[in-house]
């Protein structure tokens, strides 16, 4: 089997999953005890308005028909009007997505290399200090609630309460300082945009605003990645071919990084895919605590204010990102491990 065949198979296997997600979303939408018309138009809406809304959204049709209308809208990219902001949901998402992506990607860029490195090191040096520190991080990282960590950091770095005098270096709220004007939008990432615009103050401000949220978000993912890498590595290091490598006279460093890690990558890649999901989930907390204007915060607002179209729109975007991240992981895994494409035992 060739790589492209494998990718095609994975894509085909995704179809029922995507359809299933739409069904779940549809069920959620129908499970709302409130009439969406009233939720959208407000309690003072006139009956005709409500009837018109119902007709427009085919809310009086039988359920299967409603589902097909709903699917039809989805396929044309129409996620409906936002119940919170009263603009199309797609527009809202487009505004807020880059902020979230900037935050999430930065967090993963921190969590992945550090987690993998510590995981490998700790597996290779059992009961040394690297191992002890890593195990501590792995245990504590998954036990600390991310929202609590965020709050603690906020208290820790607060101007008045701050334990160390870093009050001017790291900022606690938003993406930019209050008086700054955002750089012209190219990628939507303030750090990159400000660099492109050669706006140095903006860049510094964007970076200092990014550090704390990204660290908070990354910390939990780091712990998960570390834990899985470590256990994967410990298993691989007990294999016969590691003994063979040692018998060949391969230096220990290469045994660990070349022979063992290539094989342990399976666990790491899988968990890296999963952490994309938990990072998006963590966004909801981090963004609302650090006041970061991303889709996580938007989602929370929608959830708290019965903004159902916004909610479903968010659900789709995140699912698409999550599923494609896992697809990338699968393909990467196929390139790393010849078993996947070549078959074999």
């Amino acid at each position, binding site marked *: 089997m060739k790589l492209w065949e494998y990718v095609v198979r994975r894509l085909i296997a995704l179809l029922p999953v995507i359809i299933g997600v739409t069904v779940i979303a549809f069920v959620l939408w129908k499970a709302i005890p409130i009439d969406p018309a009233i939720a959208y138009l407000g309690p003072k809406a006139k009956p005709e308005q409500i009837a018109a809304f119902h007709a427009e959204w085919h809310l009086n049709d039988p359920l299967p028909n409603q589902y097909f209308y709903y699917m039809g809208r989805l396929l044309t990219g129409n996620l409906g009007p936002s119940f919170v902001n009263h603009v199309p949901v797609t527009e809202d998402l487009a505004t807020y997505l880059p902020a979230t992506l900037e935050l999430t990607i930065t967090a993963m860029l921190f969590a992945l290399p550090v987690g993998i490195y510590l995981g490998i090191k700790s597996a290779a040096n059992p009961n040394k200090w690297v191992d002890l520190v890593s195990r501590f991080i792995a245990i504590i990282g*998954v036990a600390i609630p991310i929202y609590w960590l965020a709050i603690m950091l*906020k*208290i820790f770095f607060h101007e008045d309460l701050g334990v160390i005098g870093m009050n001017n270096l790291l900022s606690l709220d938003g993406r930019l300082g209050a008086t700054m004007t955002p750089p012209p939008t190219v990628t939507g990432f303030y750090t990159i945009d400000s660099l492109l615009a050669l706006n140095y103050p903006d860049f510094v401000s964007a970076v200092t605003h990014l550090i704390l949220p990204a660290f908070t978000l990354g910390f939990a993912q780091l712990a998960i990645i570390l834990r899985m890498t470590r256990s994967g590595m410990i298993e691989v290091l007990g294999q016969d071919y590691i003994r063979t490598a040692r018998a060949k006279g391969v230096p220990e460093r290469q045994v660990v990084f070349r022979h063992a890690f290539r094989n342990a990558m399976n666990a790491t890649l899988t968990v890296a895919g999963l952490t994309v999901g938990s990072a998006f989930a963590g966004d909801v907390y981090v963004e609302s605590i650090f006041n970061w204007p991303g889709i996580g915060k938007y989602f929370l607002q*929608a959830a708290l204010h019965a903004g159902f179209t916004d909610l479903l729109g968010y659900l789709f975007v995140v699912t698409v990102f999550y599923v494609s991240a896992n697809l990338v992981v699968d393909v990467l895994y196929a390139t790393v491990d010849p078993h996947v494409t070549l078959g074999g035992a």
Partner: protein
Amino acid sequence: MAVESSKETAVVTAWRRFLKDHASRISELKYSLFLFRKNKLAVLGLIFILAVIAIAFLAPFLAIERPAYVNINGQLQQRWPVYDQPGNYQVLLPPSLAHPFGTDHFGTDWYSKLLYGASVSLEIGLSVVIPASVIGSFLGLVAGFEGGIMEEVIMRVTDIFLSIPSLILAIAICAVLGRSIEHVTYALIITWWPWYTRLVRGQVLSIKERQFIEAAKSVGARPSRLMLWHILPNSISPVIVQASMDFGYVILTAAGLGFLGLGAPPGTAEWGVMISEGLNYLFNAPWLAVFPGLAIIVTVLGFNLLGDGLRDILDPRLRR
């Protein structure tokens, strides 16, 4: 005298015989206990958990204040803050001997509320993990054992649920259903079972290939017997490990939902809700957010360490 001693010896010999007959099981148990005791962290985890359970049961005796009970739809529910002694409350007191964890903006003793929170968290954990693991394991068992179209359907459904990040699905469900602890439980069961299905199916698939399954078939075992006697007992240990870990994660997530304002209703002694109440006075009264968080950490840590310890004990590769 003689009669007594002979009676005694009869009991003793019966006991001895029991010990001898079950020597293997006993030594197995002893070995497990040894492995567990050797694992200091797991013991620590167990201590944490036992402490939390003890607090959950003893809260009425340990607390300084007791919650009011309100009758809602025929069920008694706790209500905080308590106003049975009006005028006696001082708001936002820092931790002191009288109020070990301070007081909140209503003057509620934070320490008492925290103690009552233990039972809420444990209850949520129990009522999510047990149904989720039972349902998930059963489906996984069926999928792995039957194979074919059954497996395909179950695993596709599992995939669908797994393709939405679990917290986000839980938030969406809670948003739709409204604020209540019960709804949190439903939402978490819905998001949690697929993990067990996947786990158990993997186990079953590997155990199905072992020769003792073939051997059992060759002596005439029916599929039901294979499934329940041969495959299930051999695939259950990772489920136990996973369940004990998930206990912690469920408590963490439920508290998170409470924190976001989607879980337990305000005024409940739920740690997540308590943190979010503290969020408003973050810089005036940081203790309000700090202590419930620590409680969550201790509980989650306990279950996590216990799960790790159990994995070490139950993992056949580590045994002998």
